[in-house]
């Protein structure tokens, strides 16, 4: 079977909008479709748009077993994270000023916490274990009497590990701490039951799950009720939590994407996991190749691998027929080694030599086989050029080598 190049294996950075979603979106834009402003109360154009927004709200709520009234539309997971963390911190600031999060969180969480530090909040950034998971005892120990909020992502964007949000949430409940979970990478890929989970706030993104970019949502639990201070002020849309004209087509697209994900998850998860395992079987059998993050507690489509003695950027160049990433897309313009891998205790060299392969709805077995062959061949070539690889092959202990400065 032939494959078409370039091959897209960067589904954690973004996904293409599913054709079924795009078709539905197109019906909510032009004059012959539902184009009204959902906030228009005085005519049928507005009501039709509002109805479409309500339906999408139900679809999004249904995927995670929430009440539609618990879903607040935002412009994406970044805004959801900002609203959840700043919104809760500002509302509960009189209760305390301490926040707990993890060093491997997405920048949208970490940078928001930095903003709050400048406002006088105190933030504890926990180290994950070498497998990427959070030690539950260390997390519990980090919660203090003045802790108001903890934020832990469900699935990590770089290494795909799944945190035990149920236990973490329970620990927060016991201490009366609000628990926020960034689920941008998990919704539609890992089952989520918010009626059962002790989670107060959860961020969602549409474009990670075949919906459009520029739309997301924040789950704000009603019972027990979580209060937030709005961050975007204006016409009082979304019960005053987030002002701004609702982008009907975007919302409809997110609803449809979540509906499809819910319908297809049961078959898609095992299919994608099998492809990922096939990829790992092909790559992991090479010498000096390391998997980053736990393999078992990991989202199906993610494989993050370090190829020792190969420079990650050179490998990406050599793999130009395959769209992969050497870290999170949001920081990929920098050549700093991934902060996530550094937090796992990986050396700079291994962090630099890492590639994230993320598999999704349109990945085929033939693509996996093509990528395995290509990577094996390119890694071999790059290593042939590497003096370090030669020294390693000769049995030199590289850690003992004294490098001369010049």
């Amino acid at each position: 079977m032939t494959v078409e190049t370039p091959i897209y294996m960067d589904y954690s950075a973004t996904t293409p909008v599913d054709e079924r979603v795009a078709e539905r979106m197109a019906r909510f834009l032009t004059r012959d479709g539902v184009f009204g402003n959902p906030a228009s109360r005085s005519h049928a154009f507005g009501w039709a748009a509002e109805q479409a927004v309500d339906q999408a709200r139900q679809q999004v709520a249904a995927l995670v077993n929430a009440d539609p009234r618990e879903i607040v539309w935002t412009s994406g997971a970044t805004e959801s994270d900002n609203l959840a963390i700043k919104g809760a911190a500002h509302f509960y600031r009189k209760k305390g000023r301490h926040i707990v999060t993890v060093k491997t969180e997405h920048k949208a969480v970490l940078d928001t916490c930095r903003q709050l530090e400048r406002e006088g909040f105190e933030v504890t950034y926990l180290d994950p274990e070498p497998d990427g998971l959070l030690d539950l005892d260390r997390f519990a120990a980090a919660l203090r009497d003045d802790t108001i909020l903890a934020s832990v992502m469900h699935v990590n964007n770089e290494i795909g590990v799944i945190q035990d949000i149920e236990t973490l949430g329970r620990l927060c409940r016991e201490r009366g701490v609000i628990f926020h979970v960034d689920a941008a990478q998990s919704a539609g890929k890992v089952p989520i039951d918010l009626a059962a989970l002790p989670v107060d706030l959860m961020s969602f993104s549409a474009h990670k799950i075949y919906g459009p970019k520029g739309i997301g949502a924040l789950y704000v639990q009603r019972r027990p009720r979580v209060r937030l201070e709005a961050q975007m002020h204006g016409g009082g849309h979304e019960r005053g939590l987030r002002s701004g004209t609702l982008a009907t087509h975007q919302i409809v697209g997110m609803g449809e994407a979540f509906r499809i994900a819910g319908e297809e998850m049961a078959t898609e998860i095992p299919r994608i996991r099998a492809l990922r395992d096939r990829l790992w079987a092909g790559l992991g059998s090479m010498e000096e190749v390391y998997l980053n993050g736990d393999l078992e507690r990991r989202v199906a489509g993610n494989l993050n691998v370090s190829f020792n003695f190969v420079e990650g950027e050179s490998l990406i160049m050599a793999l130009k027929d395959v769209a992969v990433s050497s870290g999170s897309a949001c920081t990929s313009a920098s050549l700093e080694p991934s902060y996530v891998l550094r937090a796992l205790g990986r050396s700079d060299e291994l962090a630099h030599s890492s590639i994230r392969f993320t598999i999704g709805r349109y990945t085929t077995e033939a693509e996996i086989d093509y990528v395995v062959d290509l990577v094996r061949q390119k890694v071999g070539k790059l290593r042939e050029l590497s003096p370090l690889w030669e020294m390693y092959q000769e049995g030199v202990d590289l850690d003992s080598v004294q490098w001369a400065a010049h």
Partner: protein
Amino acid sequence: MDACYLDCNATTPLDPRVLEAMRPWLTHAGNPSSLHGAGRRARAAIEQAREQVAALVGVDPVQVVFTSGGTEANNLALHALCARAGTGTLAVSAIEHPSVQAPARQLAARGWRLQPVPCDAHGQVRLEALAEALEPEGGVATVMLANNETGVVQDVTALAAEARGRGALFHTDAVQAAGKLALDFTALGVTSLSLSAHKFHGPKGVGALVVERGFPVAPLLAGGGQERGRRSGTENLAGIVGFGRAAELARAERAQRADHMLALRQRLEAGLARLPGISIFAEDVPRLPNTVQFALAGYQGEALLMELDREGIAVSSGSACASGAGRPSPVLVAMGVDPDLARGAVRVSLGPDNRAEDVDRLLHALEARAAGARRLGALGW
């Protein structure tokens, strides 16, 4: 009978040419921040759109910060300008959109001296009023370019010069003006200006804040550092492409659209003038070519709107963002309009697709009601 949409200041239908431009970027895989080919193509599409939006207001593309819409642009502007100014007076005109008023109140809670700037009976903000609000110290001033309800166009060039002469930074909300009036950022002399795509046949969920060259924008949204650190979050790729195309079309077709809408507005106003008990708000001052706000004495606005809707005519009382509230429009109240009359307000906002028949249909519906009211009046009701 076809429905007759006369509420283009609330939102406009997307131009099919804009949809055509957006469509391939929906199903494109590639995050604009990714370094691979798919990512770089997405980046290039965004930068092209940035040029198109920049051209609409005559700026360099680097001055354009994409946002999720006009509300975010206004929130970002007020926070960024206040962060830059440090302390002082925040002068906000009485006719601003809620997306300016609300963040201004939030800033007031953080210590800014909030100073409302009144407008006159024609809905115009006078230079003297702005000057007085900025006494004795500068700070930040904001006056919208064109009002969403009355359509009144402010002399922003003079207002911005007045404010800046007093050491204040100046923001203008140009959401309703863009696509209807010719805009030249530099000639306006403002510090920042906000835009929204869906008000001129682009998609909802995308807008921009345009700032002076080199102006530091402290971000509202923290994260991946997109938009040169001024606004984090994965870019709304298809939306931004659509915004760019809509801006390009607006720039090319603005004059002709404006002429067409103005002719329809004049036809409507001529018809309205024949109705008994009619008041057209801000009738004698420069207004957007597409906007008329009026009231018929003795009519409740909401009831009239519902009746018109039953006949397939879509108009509104004022801002969609505040609709359903049942209160008289704060804009009309600020102009000194009697609250009872203000409660009867109807806003008609035309689009380039409207035709004379649409205007006539509305006029007939209004005439029938006015005649009915006269009969009831004759019976002593």
